[in-house]
């Protein structure tokens, strides 16, 4: 499909994503296969855990602690709260793992628990209503048609370094985390699961109990929000 888009444009946009497939449009196939293989391995792990194998506990912790902590840090913006959330999430995971039926992959099941833990915390602390993204121009429209097409001309970020180099920049990573954490819950949970954790639109829709079309709208808004956020920190002239 990518070949259908102008070669010239694709060449400019098809940079390799660090650590994953080459270029966004080509990405999905390379992500999907390892997830399916991983899901099979996860099911074996669950069986071992049920049989009382502590090695399985260890493997589950080692596999998911890093991604879960990343997810929780981007959700709450505070590393200490995130660690607390990680402990709570794992506690629920290991308590209820005996009930895991394999209807979802273990990854999705675990992330659903993490989402519920965030939701619980958010409800407890809720002082600010989870409304529309502020500072983004077309906040109240459900249709993406209202997106300003030429936001770039107003000074959008232009990545002077390639994405792999940016990922090595600790300050840039912190800005990304802050940017996501600053979004209203309904947006950050979607971009976190979909873009950062690589879950499919369908999986995100199932985990959150919302329509796929809603996932897509929220994802697009979250991306534009993050773009605005980074633009304000990496402003360059056109």
């Amino acid at each position, binding site marked *: 499909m990518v070949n259908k888009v102008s070669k010239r444009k694709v060449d400019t946009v098809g*940079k390799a994503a660090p650590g994953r497939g080459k270029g966004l449009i080509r990405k999905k196939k390379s992500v999907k296969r390892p997830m399916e293989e991983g899901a099979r391995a996860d099911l074996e792990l669950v069986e071992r855990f049920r049989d009382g194998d502590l090695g399985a506990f260890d493997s589950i912790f080692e596999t998911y602690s*890093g991604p879960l902590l990343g997810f929780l840090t981007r959700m709450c913006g505070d590393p200490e709260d995130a660690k607390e959330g990680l402990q709570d999430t794992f506690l629920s995971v290991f308590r209820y793992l005996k009930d895991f039926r394999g209807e979802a992959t273990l990854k999705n099941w675990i992330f659903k628990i993490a989402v519920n833990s965030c939701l619980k915390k958010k409800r407890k602390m809720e002082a600010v209503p989870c409304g529309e993204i502020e500072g983004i121009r077309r906040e109240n429209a459900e249709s993406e048609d209202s997106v300003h097409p030429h936001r*770039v001309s107003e000074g959008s970020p232009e990545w002077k370094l390639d994405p792999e180099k940016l990922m090595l920049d600790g300050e840039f990573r912190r800005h990304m985390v802050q940017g996501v954490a600053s979004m209203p819950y309904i947006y950050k949970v979607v971009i976190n699961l979909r873009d950062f954790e690589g879950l499919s639109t369908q999986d995100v829709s199932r985990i959150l109990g919302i329509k796929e079309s809603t996932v897509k709208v929220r994802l*697009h808004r979250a991306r534009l929000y993050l*773009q605005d956020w*980074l633009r304000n920190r990496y402003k360059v002239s056109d």
Partner: protein
Amino acid sequence: MSGKRDPCTKVIQKTYMILEEERSESMCESLRIHLDECEACAKQYKILEDLVSLCQGFPPEEIPEDQKQRMKKKLLAAL
């Protein structure tokens, strides 16, 4: 789309769908035509794609070994 230029707003919508891999051949073709003609949309396309690549390449959080061990100990004690 044969020669008829899309309004930019529609193109952005298509760009989004292409990023979501819901593209059709005709959609890609009309986007190609528009991106060839509209520098601003082409720039926006690149920025969105780069941004998504950055999110996708974001490394998982690293937990120091001693913290991991403490956490595991606590979990095992609570189970």
